[in-house]
């Protein structure tokens, strides 16, 4: 694979997220000549974050296209190309800049198949880094999972590790619907063990299926993208204290895999959602709402006390909330009669005063 020839030699089987995405795109470009990549700096510069390294050299100007600086312009061009039968991968330097193009993504890419009565499909992939990076300030740090996850017509995926990245980008490219792939800049350089099946050119991860990264019995922790790593770290710390977390990597934001989450919560009776986006109207808020509207009736009465939705700070804040949540579950058996301050948001809940929910 010529695109991968620039790889630093790593321990056998280890691939960085960047190289996984690169491999995925390379394989799909090779497989189908209708696939092409466009965006700012993707060609000769190898990509602003070097994700498309080697691709321009291998495929040339026709397939890897540098555009002038206009997100609304090149997103529109990509949508038009998709409508005419090509399969574009439209890269945003970060998803923060996709706001310049959001009309093209939502009003054109997402809604067209429906509004044309099924006549006009838009097989397009929008990809790029999403969420916080290091010290790049508010305009480079927003997580768009909730924004794009809100809209019918779009599929939205959010890979965490290399396996996710490769499997999901390939599925996204092969999918005939518009797919938004939310990567993470800080994950690009992180190496992961690449399972043997991931090395296949037909390795696909189904869109709409979450993965249980770690089995557990006491509490369900649901996350996507980089925070999944933090959840696993927190789980390791809590395990030493006898709390076993079940960590779910969502992988897909829309359509959300509620079955996996519900099955897990039925088992553990506790849920913490962790994300890089803001809490109000966020991914976690949606998960909590669906749990409350769905299976909550099958669970223990004081269920609402244990449903906590936090915006991630770091591993230690995750640990603190999980620990408190577990403590309250067990303490409820012994301190039922003790009156505590009632929560404004969840009347009847007197779990804690953290107010994160």
């Amino acid at each position, binding site marked *: 694979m010529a695109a991968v020839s620039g790889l630093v030699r790593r321990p056998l089987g280890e691939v960085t997220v960047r190289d996984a995405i690169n491999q995925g795109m390379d394989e799909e470009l090779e497989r189908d000549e209708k696939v092409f990549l466009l965006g700012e700096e993707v060609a000769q*510069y190898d990509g602003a974050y070097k994700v498309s390294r080697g691709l321009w050299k291998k495929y040339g100007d026709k397939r890897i296209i540098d555009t002038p600086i206009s997100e609304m312009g090149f997103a529109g061009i990509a949508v038009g190309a998709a409508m005419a039968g090509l399969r574009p991968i439209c890269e945003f330097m970060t998803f923060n800049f996709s706001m310049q193009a959001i009309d093209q993504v939502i009003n054109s890419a997402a809604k067209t198949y429906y509004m044309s009565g099924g006549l006009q499909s838009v097989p397009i992939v929008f990809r790029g880094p999403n969420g916080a990076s290091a010290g790049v300030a508010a305009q480079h740090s927003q997580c768009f999972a909730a924004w794009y996850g809100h809209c019918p017509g779009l599929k939205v995926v959010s890979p965490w590790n290399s396996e996710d990245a490769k499997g999901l980008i390939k599925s996204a490219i092969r999918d005939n619907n518009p797919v938004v792939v939310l990567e993470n800049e800080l994950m690009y350089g992180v190496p992961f063990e690449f399972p043997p099946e991931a090395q296949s050119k037909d390795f696909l991860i189904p869109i709409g299926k979450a993965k249980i990264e770690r089995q557990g019995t006491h509490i369900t922790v649901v996350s996507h993208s980089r925070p999944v790593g933090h959840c696993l770290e927190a789980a390791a710390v809590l395990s030493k204290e006898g709390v076993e977390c079940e960590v779910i990597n969502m992988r897909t934001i829309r359509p959300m895999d509620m079955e996996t989450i519900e099955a897990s919560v039925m088992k553990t009776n506790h849920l913490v959602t962790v994300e890089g986006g803001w809490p109000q109207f966020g991914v976690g808020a949606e998960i909590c709402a669906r749990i409350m509207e769905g299976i909550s009736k099958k669970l223990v009465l004081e269920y609402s006390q244990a449903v906590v939705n936090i915006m991630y700070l770091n591993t230690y804040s995750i640990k603190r909330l999980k620990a408190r949540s577990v403590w309250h579950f067990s303490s409820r058996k012994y301190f039922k009669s003790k009156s505590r301050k009632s929560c404004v948001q969840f009347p009847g809940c007197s779990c804690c005063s953290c107010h994160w929910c």
Partner: protein
Amino acid sequence: MAVAIAAGRVWRPNRGLSQQQQFSSLDDKPQFPGASAEFIDKLEFIQPNVISGIPIYRVMDRQGQIINPSEDPHLPKEKVLKLYKSMTLLNTMDRILYESQRQGRISFYMTNYGEEGTHVGSAAALDNTDLVFGQYREAGVLMYRDYPLELFMAQCYGNISDLGKGRQMPVHYGCKERHFVTISSPLATQIPQAVGAAYAAKRANANRVVICYFGEGAASEGDAHAGFNFAATLECPIIFFCRNNGYAISTPTSEQYRGDGIAARGPGYGIMSIRVDGNDVFAVYNATKEARRRAVAENQPFLIESTPNLPPDPHSREPHTDLGIGHHSTSDDSSAYRSVDEVNYWDKQDHPISRLRHYLLSQGWWDEEQEKAWRKQSRKKVMEAFEQAERKPKPNPNLLFSDVYQEMPAQLRKQQESLARHLQTYGEHYPLEHFDK
């Protein structure tokens, strides 16, 4: 039909053209909306003129000699020395902060190499109260307006002295006192905003102009188109200043546009336009001064394209000469897309600082001794500010929550309190010693 139009109907062309057309009832004059045009009976497409495009206005030649004496701005010695010192101090600060990023002391930096003349020349032609909307490479404007080194450094380090409370990436300066709107990262968003501000200035009869800087790459954004069009239709006192340095990260102008640069777009919008030599601080000064005078007097926009500024340099990792020229930012290595020959040409031929120095020398206002002394002094000033900035702590974590709104909502206050409690228990896991208590 033109014949049906009664005699005496006068069609007044768009402001900016001074003719007034009277049609007799026998005239077959075309009624083209918004412009004045003649009929033609030969099929001919207008050729975009890129071979001999809009000429580049300059005042000094490469040796700093005034070419046409009637264009000499005759600036007094103190002003020219201020121009020179602002440019060189900026250059010195750039080199030290670039190195500090390379050493991991600050997270990011953008140099202004080669563009010192455009910043300082244009700033010198404005009133101090004229509002500035920049893109991210206009630190020289602030330098000319005497923004202290301490505050430049404070912003880059995000320390407690930073007026922006450490919330921005480095080089995203903002200063209300000096009428410099805080830099915003997304490209070209400042263009329609600047037009709006200019409209407000017109409404207030403020005798104030707004200047809006952007690069030739950002001019590809849709916001630029909207901004230009609105400035013309709303008749706003604004100067659009395009810094064309040939590259947008690695994208050369040949891939950015196919027309005759940005200046050629102005007339398409009905905007008075000019192209100036970015290495000639007097040319920049003259053009900006005249644009300012007329923008305010006539309430109309002006477009100045400065080119060629020095493009990024693959060799800025080498020990600097005082003609150092830089990459797009510290996230960039331009050796991938710039040839060595191209850079050497610029390096040896021309630079705004050296041109002005030649002028100063020929006027007898500067000499080698003063140059040496000033280099030492400016470096010392920068190093002192740098060392101080390094030592200062970062802002208190409480400031994460303020200024989201004018008044802090209850929910944010609760989060602020929650963080405070969290830090009480888990503070040892955070680098609190670097932050203000």
